[in-house]
């Protein structure tokens, strides 16, 4: 057990800091997220730069254009880029979900065609999982995938799909055999978003911005070779995607939270002098931030050894989301009237944080996952 960087880790961290200082324009630091993640060309340029410097796909195998580095390097990358308040790579769905899924279940042709383009941000990916009537219950997906000769004809509607309006490709789960038992009728394919019949409509959220979208598929023809694994194995493939969603995500989440807690401390220095109640609450947020940070470090050990994120990832996401809501509320409260001004960072962050306990697994579903898979409690379904 040692919390210090190894010499290799320290060298990587130092090199990355220098690179960020040299390459990240001052005016691009500390943007509040949301729409600017998508709308603007800087995102792709920045992502390409990250790739050229070797920072995209740090843990991916070298044969697919990655750096083949240990997971601790990925963790350091999240820590340092967040502390520098750098924008993230726009290909988060490709890097964190589509890429690892293609690596596990894809054919050699699919790997060659897509993996390096995900790293370089030539291909932006989105995720077609949730539907209006299949949210937490993903196995209820009804988007039809009907085999006709060499193609599947896809009809249906997906929702809550981040990046869909700028995406080139989509990882899609749907129903290929309506008569099969639950889970067995699902298939998983990759779909070119420029195919005729694909329509994307942005959804405006409570912050006023559109981060995610609805996707409509009307008689979209998808080549049969775009299936991942076999027809009917969609559920297993989707589980790979969701497993990787939580990989080293905890580090990214915690690093973002640290930026918030640092700001909170700065606000409290001004506003909480002599206010023991507020000081207690600020200290509580700091304590829980440290608790999340060192839980990440502990789970990293398991991840390094097995390559599979442990189930404690669900606990980290769960507690992170609840803490981010508390923390942003506290910062906004401490600022009084200033905290509700429309262009304020805190007011925006507090509104945005309400999505944290819903996106990427609602807190209710995550608690069920922990209850059943970690604690071994009997299944309710």
């Amino acid at each position, binding site marked *: 057990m040692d*919390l210090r960087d190894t010499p290799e880790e320290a060298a990587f961290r130092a090199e990355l800091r220098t690179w960020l200082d040299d390459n990240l324009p001052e005016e691009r630091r500390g943007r509040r997220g949301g729409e600017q993640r998508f709308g603007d060309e800087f995102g792709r340029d920045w992502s390409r730069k990250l790739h050229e410097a070797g920072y995209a796909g740090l843990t991916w195998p070298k044969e697919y254009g990655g750096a083949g580095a240990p997971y601790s390097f990925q963790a350091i990358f999240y820590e340092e880029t967040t502390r520098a308040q750098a924008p993230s790579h726009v290909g988060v769905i490709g890097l964190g979900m589509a890429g690892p899924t293609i690596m596990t279940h894809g054919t050699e042709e699919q790997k060659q065609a897509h993996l390096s383009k995900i790293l370089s941000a030539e291909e932006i990916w989105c995720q077609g999982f949730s539907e209006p009537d299949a949210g937490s219950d993903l196995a209820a997906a009804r988007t039809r995938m009907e085999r006709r000769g060499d193609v599947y004809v896809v009809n249906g509607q997906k929702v809550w799909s981040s990046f869909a309006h700028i995406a080139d490709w989509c990882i899609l789960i749907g129903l290929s055999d309506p008569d099969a038992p639950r889970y067995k009728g699902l298939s998983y394919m990759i779909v070119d978003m420029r195919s005729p019949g694909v329509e994307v409509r942005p959804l405006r959220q409570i912050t006023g911005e559109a981060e995610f979208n609805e996707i409509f598929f009307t008689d979209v023809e998808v080549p049969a070779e775009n299936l991942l694994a076999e027809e009917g194995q969609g559920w297993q493939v989707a589980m790979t995607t969701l497993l990787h969603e939580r990989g080293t995500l905890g580090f990214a989440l915690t690093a973002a939270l640290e930026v918030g807690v640092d700001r909170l401390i700065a606000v409290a220095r001004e506003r909480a002098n002599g206010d023991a109640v507020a000081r207690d609450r600020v200290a509580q947020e700091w304590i829980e931030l440290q608790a999340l940070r060192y839980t990440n470090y502990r789970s990293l050990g398991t991840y390094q050894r097995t390559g599979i994120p442990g189930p404690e990832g669900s606990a980290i996401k769960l507690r992170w989301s609840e803490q981010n809501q508390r923390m942003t509320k506290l910062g906004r409260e401490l600022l009084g009237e200033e905290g509700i001004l429309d262009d304020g960072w805190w007011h925006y962050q507090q509104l945005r944080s309400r999505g944290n306990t819903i996106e990427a697994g609602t807190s209710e579903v995550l608690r069920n996952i922990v209850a059943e898979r970690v604690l071994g409690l009997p299944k309710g379904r």
Partner: protein
Amino acid sequence: MDFALTEEQQELKSAARAWLSERYPLDRDWDGPQDDRWAELAELGWLGVSVSEEEGGVGLGFVEEALILEEMGYALYPGPYLATVGFALAALGPEDRAAVAAGTTRWSVEVNGLTPWLGSVDMVVDMEGLAQPARGEELVTVDPSRPLGRLEHTNGTPLPGPRHIARARTAMAAEAVGVAQRVLELGVEHASTRTQFGKPIGVYQAVSHQLTDTYCDVELARSLVYWAAWCVAEDDEQAPVAAAAAKAFAAEAAVAACERSIQVHGGTGFTWEHPLHRFYKRALWLEGVGSRPDELRLEIADELLGVTVPV
């Protein structure tokens, strides 16, 4: 950067779990006197884990001691290991350390004017950091295995080391994690086997989500404890805040874990016969001795925000 337990640390933790569960089972005679098996602890080397080999110890560090303390919380070990190793050891010189490792002297430390285990230890580090023979009146606490005493002060003898508050707080936090882990397991076991309305009650989310919240608390508390233990062992400058954070969070987590587990057990959890209340009382003791969680948080706030100044 590797924050996982090493193989040796895991083995030590498993060995402690096995030894303690054999000797301190849940169906023990709780209300009778409990043997602290001090000579056996000395033989196992656990009294001298962080004492050097020249002084008759094992030559490991405080992280390993924290792991044993966690297991002592899990088993509700009754003796003054926490006081001797967790509280007092850092204040002692070479001869006293050797005597602790050999199992010949038990120590405690005076905390806010009261001394845990006053009647069952030999020596006490008082509020001034002086060594005192353990004499005085003893008071029963919520946890009968852990009385607090009013020390009769003599002139005392100076000691070479400090009253190491960060070490003591981390030691208590480590026990609290063990307590919380155990009552979580008891809750899960009950929710998996107790059937109502034709189903094990663990299928109901109103029950299972309480246990899930305990699980999250335990994992976060454990991370804080290992961080604090590492800081103490390495003499890291963050040791004081890490220890304050660990104690504040772990003590509250343990109390809440017990309360949820009692609730999940229904009427059974409220009986004297069921061991849950013993864990609850240990958690309350750990929360109540030393600084309260809100005092600890205000200490941390002073560190983060600067000390409050009059306006």
